């Protein structure tokens, strides 16, 4: 079969064994392409294990700047015999299979429509190195070197990356560069380089990445930076994949920025709690006392934190919680992605509760929305949950540089200071709605010698914080909390709406990491003459334009990464639009990020044009 040809537009997947050091070599591969100014989006597809199980790294190169998963693999780098059969089967016709020739190829898994490129990786390592760990580690570097020749990666950039990576461990630089050269040399001698699929720097960049001033960063690091910029001083947490790196990164930045040079003391505190219940309790205690505090967790932690979320909602204590979602229920697939905590987060806890949710779609939004989350939590005196996911949190995404406006000031909400209390003549009522927005005034413990003290509780209380079992008072309080949630609609980030070039009654609605493949599917469908308006949700409660958008369309495809169409159901629950027949669920929940091809195919199916384009690469991909 004719080998595939494509410049700057293909998918490469590495099949490795976890714990063998492949992640850093693969990361270097992706970063080199990024440094060449070519849009790239890498993804780790890893097991819940430390050593010995199959792990994959998928790198999408997209001249059009699409960062979601496309679907399909054009080149497989097979370094793991365990998963060979499955890996071969994923390669598209005309694609490439780079494999280790040290052992003979299992002929049962040889496909005639795939091009095999054999490199004796293990043999080269055995010959070159005596130490077993070196033999394992350098194998990864050798194949990156070979790929540099096969795909036309700028070798000077690779060498720079090695130098940066081993800064401070200089003696490792030369052997790594040597391993790269070995791979490069082997590929150049044995194959016609570059292959049909390859890279070319200086090609036209996509319209939305006009000048290639981009950064490559993961969402969890951006979230942690957001917490630093928001002035969070307390982080309490319990380790859980995929959220752990949020607090790791927070600590890293705090060590750089928050240690008093004079005393060596810290202007922050990180407490590793005994469980998620405790982590949430600490966050609530700290916020009650007027420090900005947050926690990061994933689905199982949300379950445990629900009790405290109910308390914070009812007792009106601010709290910021980062939920880096993974595949549930229960332990589910801890290292796979999903958007399946929507219900658990929106209605966490027993009784009538609702929580403010934010849905970032990019690292830049992880940063800005985390800053915003602290303002919202304090303004609304309620928990705010940042709904990230594993794909966004743990993978590196190309993003415009992070921005921060130095004139911006924190909104600490309605807090009466000691001076204000001193000047007050009337009795302080912690839960009095003086402004008609449902938000009362609070005081910090210790603010004033004789005024402003009150009793915080999760039990029913009156406007002056005194315990009550009076039904009317209880209802008044519950209604005020609802009023506060209405106020939240005017404060949370609005949805992003994009209208199609031609008028249409059909629309796509999505949020978070579903956005990238959804926008790509939209462009694909547009080229086929299918026009759709789009709405990207960015928050809950739903703002007015969300209701208007649903009202204005006949059919809205709600695309999300969970089984039950949780966001669709939340929309039905929480909007006043009669939308049951309008909202069509499009779901993907296998734990891998949904692909643009899948979305496009499902929409075509719904529109009755399923047979127009087959689910294989289109002409333009090969051209």
């Amino acid at each position, binding site marked *: 079969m004719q080998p595939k040809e494509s410049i700057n537009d293909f998918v490469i997947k590495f099949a490795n064994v976890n714990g063998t050091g492949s992640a850093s070599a693969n990361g270097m591969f992706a970063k080199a392409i990024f*440094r060449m100014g070519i849009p790239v989006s890498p993804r780790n597809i890893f097991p819940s294990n430390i050593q010995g199980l199959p792990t994959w790294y998928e790198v999408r190169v997209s001249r059009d700047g699409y960062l979601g998963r496309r679907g399909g693999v054009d080149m497989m780098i097979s370094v793991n015999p365990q998963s060979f059969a499955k890996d071969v089967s994923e390669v598209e016709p005309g694609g490439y299979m780079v494999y280790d020739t040290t052992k003979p190829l299992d002929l049962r898994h040889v496909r005639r429509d795939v091009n095999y490129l054999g490199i004796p990786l293990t043999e080269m390592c055995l010959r070159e190195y005596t130490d077993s760990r070196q033999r394992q580690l350098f194998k990864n570097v050798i194949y990156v070197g070979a790929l540099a020749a096969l795909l036309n990666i700028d070798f000077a950039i690779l060498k720079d990356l090695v130098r940066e990576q081993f800064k401070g461990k200089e003696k490792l630089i030369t052997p790594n560069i040597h391993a790269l050269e070995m791979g490069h040399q082997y590929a150049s001698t044995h194959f016609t380089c570059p292959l049909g699929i390859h890279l070319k720097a200086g090609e036209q960049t996509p319209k939305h990445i006009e000048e290639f*001033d981009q950064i*490559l960063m993961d969402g969890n690091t951006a979230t942690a930076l957001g917490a*630093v*910029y*928001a*002035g969070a*001083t*307390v982080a309490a947490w319990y380790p859980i994949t995929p959220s752990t790196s949020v607090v790791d990164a927070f600590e890293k930045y705090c060590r750089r*920025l928050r240690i008093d040079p004079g*005393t060596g*003391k*810290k*202007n*922050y*505190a*990180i*407490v590793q*709690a*005994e*469980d998620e*219940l*405790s*982590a949430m*309790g*600490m966050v*609530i*205690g*700290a*916020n*009650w*006392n*007027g*420090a900005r*505090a947050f926690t990061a967790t994933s689905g199982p932690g949300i379950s445990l934190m629900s*009790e405290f979320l109910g*308390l914070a909602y009812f007792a009106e204590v601010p709290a910021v919680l980062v939920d880096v979602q993974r595949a549930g229920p229960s332990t589910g697939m801890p290292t796979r992605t999903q958007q399946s905590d929507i219900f658990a987060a929106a209605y966490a806890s027993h009784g009538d509760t609702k929580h403010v949710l934010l849905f970032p779609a990019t690292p830049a939004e992880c940063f800005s929305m985390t800053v915003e989350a602290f303002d919202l939590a304090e303004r609304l005196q309620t928990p705010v949950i940042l709904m990230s996911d594993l794909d966004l949190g743990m993978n590196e995404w190309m993003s415009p*540089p*992070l*921005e*921060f*406006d*130095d004139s911006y000031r*924190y909104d600490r909400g309605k807090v009466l200071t000691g001076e204000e209390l001193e000047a007050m003549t009337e009795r302080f009522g912690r839960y009095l709605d003086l402004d008609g927005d449902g938000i009362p005034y609070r005081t*910090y*413990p*210790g603010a*004033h*010698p*004789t005024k402003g*003290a*009150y*009793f*915080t*509780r*999760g*039990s029913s209380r009156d406007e002056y914080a*005194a*315990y009550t*079992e009076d039904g009317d008072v209880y209802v008044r309080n519950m209604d005020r909390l609802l009023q506060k949630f209405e106020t939240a609609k005017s404060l949370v980030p609005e949805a992003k709406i994009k209208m199609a070039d031609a008028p249409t009654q059909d629309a796509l609605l999505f949020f978070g990491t579903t956005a990238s493949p959804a926008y790509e599917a939209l462009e694909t469908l547009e080229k086929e003459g299918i026009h759709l308006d789009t709405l990207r949700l960015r928050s809950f409660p739903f703002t007015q334009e969300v209701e208007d958008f649903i009202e204005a369309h006949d059919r809205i495809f709600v695309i999300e990464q969970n089984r039950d169409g949780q966001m669709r159901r939340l929309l039905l629950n929480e909007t006043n639009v009669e939308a049951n027949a309008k909202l069509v669920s499009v779901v993907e929940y296998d734990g891998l990020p949904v692909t643009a091809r899948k979305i496009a195919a499902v929409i075509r199916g719904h529109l009755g044009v399923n047979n127009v384009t087959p689910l294989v690469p289109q002409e333009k991909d090969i051209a």
Partner: protein
Amino acid sequence: MTYAKPAFRHPDSKTNEVGCTRRDYEGGLSTLCAGCGHDSISAAIIDACFELSIEPHRVAKLSGIGCSSKTPAYFLSGSHSFNSVHGRMPSVATGANVANRDLIYIGVSGDGDTASIGMGQFAHVMRRNLNMTYIVENNGCYGLTKGQDSATMDTDSVSKKGDINPYMPIDLVRLGIEVGATFVGRSFSGDKAQLVPLIKAAISHRGFALLDVISPCVTFNNHQGSTKSYANFREHNEAMPVDFVPRREAITTSYDAGMVQEVCLHDGSVLRLQKVNNEYNIEDAQSALDAIAHHSKQDRILTGLLYINRDSEELHDVLQTASKPLNTMSQRDLCPGSRFLDSINAGLR
């Protein structure tokens, strides 16, 4: 319902160093059963805070859920209070303390709140040596749900319904010494002379102070056959007197030489303790555990200050937090600004 008390004050009421009368340390009227041991403990807290001349607003009161956890409404109405969720007060107290190290934290819990639903948090807050006073109002049963046995109920104690408890009790004092509490005392709600100085010492201690206070439940656990009744506890109480001498005051009381031990606390106040015997060293954990076990074998319950570690690192020492409370830091102290972001961006290109 918390009822307000009349604001009347006797013109000759004694004032303390910060100009407050004892009345300034009181709270709402208790809604607990008449004769409840918990009310005596609230009164002891009021006395202790008044006598220590603590400004009420510098105290934060925390509790969980249950009869005991209602009591912060009955003392120090001038302090902020947080009645949290069942068994989770330690984590809320930890967060609050981390955010503002300058307040005095008094937690009130019960045996259900501490030894059952809250066992995990209780053990970990001691392990972290959080600087707080943690009072367990221990009556061996669940009062608010009508008298079920709790995990501190002694084996073979008979419930009001006549059932014999088959399970081992959890001894909070021994647990506290084992997992890292740095001040461990046991007392009795009916022994004000011992309880008030113990509370004062607990508040003055720098680190986690646990007070396990036996506090009989008059309604569900004060009958014959119950080991936690007033009568039974009085009979078996081996009380070691405690005398608390605040800093700046001269020591006036006299004890038998040789049987008195003086312990100087972090803030300069002094504890004078009557020893049980010469072998018992309250600054040695094993010695304390041995003494508790020795008395227990003889069917005696040792009360008083049982263990103290005066030179421990509390959580802020471990975390190395700034002396300025975290909750007083401003945006200027905390936000790095856009220039630092430029350097972050540069490193990610």
